[in-house]
């Protein structure tokens, strides 16, 4: 059975569709102006809504088939909420999510059921994401059974095949999760996500809870599986080193917004947004000489709360390049060429030509201003 490889129906391309960076074909996933607010309620008998947590606030991005998008940001920046809203595990407040041209938001559970097969998730904590009372065979086989993709006679063979594919042994079929180490449990989680032969896998911090020597094994396994099953990944992590290694493109989030998105090497070598610069500079390099040679840009203060985000540019309270305009007008998401976008009034690492040739990207938030950044303003020392 290879239901997952059935040809997709001809995707409907909307007029506002933005092509992926490669320019070939239709994007697999299109997120436009996605918003997810959580209400803050208070009151003794009647719940009054007293505020909102703006977890995801007008995010747009596209993903081509076979590509890996790295999503980075600090805790509370909304990266996990964005993933869950894309998968419709959370209902979006507004905005649209299209998978192969099909609109996902606003659909009923039943309508979403067949689509769930195409989009799976791998979770961070391999201890919490597996049911301790179920045997491995059941954990990995349940998705197949629920989606009617394997008869009971085939089920065992299929699950054992999957277990071997992720580097476990077919004898592990009857074991319980507690009999495995963290790395092995993450392999079980990967086998479960893979069972339905999805087109896209969202991996939410898949290696963060693992030991250093196991991390490389799992990263390599995910890369092999991507090749073998032509998977598209959204790889969420707070670890920029890991993201740089796995991702084709990187999106950087800060308090519910995408502040920079672009090809992985460009984002890491020539970051445009001061926040990306600070994030890169904060990651210690495991090489004493390289580390000593760097001039770190240490940010003051803490990440603001998404329930009370700063006005206009949300980074202005901690940004060393911030000026008056940053607290007054939200910067638009500007396209600086080669698919490298950033939302900042004082972009870094750009020459005059690139700033002059820049234009506002279609992904820009609806409430953002339309003022283009001026060249030569506020250079921060990087590296």
């Amino acid at each position, binding site marked *: 059975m290879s239901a997952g490889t059935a040809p997709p129906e001809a995707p409907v391309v909307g007029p506002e569709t933005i092509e992926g960076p490669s320019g070939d074909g239709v994007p697999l996933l299109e997120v436009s102006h996605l918003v997810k607010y959580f209400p803050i309620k208070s009151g003794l008998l009647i719940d009054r809504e007293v505020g909102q947590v703006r977890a995801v606030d007008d995010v747009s991005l596209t993903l081509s088939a076979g590509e890996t998008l790295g999503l980075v940001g*600090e*805790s509370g920046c909304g990266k996990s909420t964005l993933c869950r809203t894309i998968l419709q595990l959370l209902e979006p407040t507004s905005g649209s999510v299209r998978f192969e041209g099909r609109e996902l938001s606003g659909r009923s559970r039943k309508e979403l059921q067949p689509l769930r097969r195409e989009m799976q998730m791998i979770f961070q904590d391999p201890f919490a994401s597996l049911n301790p009372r179920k045997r491995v065979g059941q954990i990995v086989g349940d998705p197949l059974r629920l989606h009617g993709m394997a008869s009971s006679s085939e089920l065992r063979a299929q699950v054992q095949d999957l277990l071997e594919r992720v580097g476990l042994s077919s004898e592990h079929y009857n074991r319980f999760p507690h009999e495995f*180490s963290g*790395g*092995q449990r993450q392999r079980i989680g990967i086998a479960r996500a893979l069972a339905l032969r999805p087109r896209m896998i969202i991996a939410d911090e898949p290696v963060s809870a693992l*030991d*250093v*020597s*196991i*991390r*490389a*094994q799992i*990263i*390599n396994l995910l*890369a092999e599986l991507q090749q073998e099953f032509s998977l598209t990944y959204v790889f969420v992590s*707070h*670890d*920029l*080193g*890991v993201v*740089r*290694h*796995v991702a084709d493109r990187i999106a950087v989030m800060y308090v519910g917004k995408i502040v920079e998105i672009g090809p*992985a*090497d460009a984002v*890491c070598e020539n970051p445009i947004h001061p926040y990306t610069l*600070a*994030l*890169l*500079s*904060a*990651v*210690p*390099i*495991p*090489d*004493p000489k*390289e*580390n000593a040679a760097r001039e*770190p840009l*240490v*940010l*003051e*203060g*803490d*990440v603001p709360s998404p329930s009370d985000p700063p006005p206009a540019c949300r980074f202005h309270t901690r940004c060393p390049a911030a000026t008056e305009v940053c607290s007054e007008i939200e910067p638009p998401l500007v396209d600086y060429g080669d698919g490298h976008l950033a939302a900042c009034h004082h972009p870094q690492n750009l020459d005059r030509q690139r700033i002059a040739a820049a234009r506002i990207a279609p992904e820009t938030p609806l409430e953002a201003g339309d003022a283009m950044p001026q060249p030569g303003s506020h250079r921060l020392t990087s590296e």
Partner: protein
Amino acid sequence: MAPPLLQVKDLRVRFVTEDGTVRAVDGVSFDLRQGEVLAIVGESGCGKSVTAQTLLGLTRSPNARIEGSVRYADRELITASDEELRAIRGEEMAMVFQDPMTSLNPVYKVGDQITEQILAHSNVSEHVALEEAVRLLRAVGIPDAERRAGDYPHEYSGGMRQRAMIAMALSLEPKILIADEPSTALDVTIQAQILRLLELLNRDRGLAMIMITHDLGVVAEVADRVLVMYAGRIVESGTLDEVFYDPQHPYTWGLLGSLTRIDQPHAEALAQISGQPPSMLALPEGCHFQPRCPHRFERCMEVPALIERDREGSGHSDRCWLDPDRKRELRQMGDRIGLEVPAA
């Protein structure tokens, strides 16, 4: 050279459990000098935290068997009474833990928790102690310290809680700070702030530090010397540069080779260490790393000693049977250190 501040010799910690005896720490020796930052790296369960906690007598319990020697200022801490240890904790050696939320008491104000510690160890008035607490909070970078001292821990962010923990650890002006994964639970930009603070304390006050971490990036940033632990034993020890640029143990090669770095573009596949870390209840015979080591040979079934490599006394030592010349040949795979590059 001045005598070391702290001398640990052949430290062994065993825990008797229902399933058998766990040799959590198996013959660990090291010196810590004045003003030095020593990093102990290794994966979960390698014994790095148990080593650190044992220094302060925190692993004492009816089912723990602790042997060896920990000497601090002519005092033997392994055999010291609980009372003697209590005088040393905080005043001579203080500890900062990984998770600041669980190490602060949620029902007391932060300032009061620091004040309590000062009052327990010295004869000052409550008022003076509170002033001292505020001064400490200011010194570790808590903004508006006077007011924030009256806040409860939940009103602090993660980074501020860790700063408060450091302030508390510093309150009795210890000579040694033991930091167990102090920045692991924090975001990267906050981790950078905490590491910077620890570096300043080391530089300006000459505070000696033992830094327990699994993150080689953090090690590269703060450490002077490094101990690499695997399954309860030190497998390699040396200066920062020795361990990073001339690593001798295949486990160290594997750790360094399997890292992802932000300053390096996408490699095809990461070098990886195969297999799983061993169960501490059923340790492999001989060299504990031998089942995962691609270079093992017959001799690895015997326990190798921790041997100093050169005679110049730098102290760079490792625990491996391989011939040093052979290691030099093996170590370079392609243009990077590493154990095995998986077949594409």
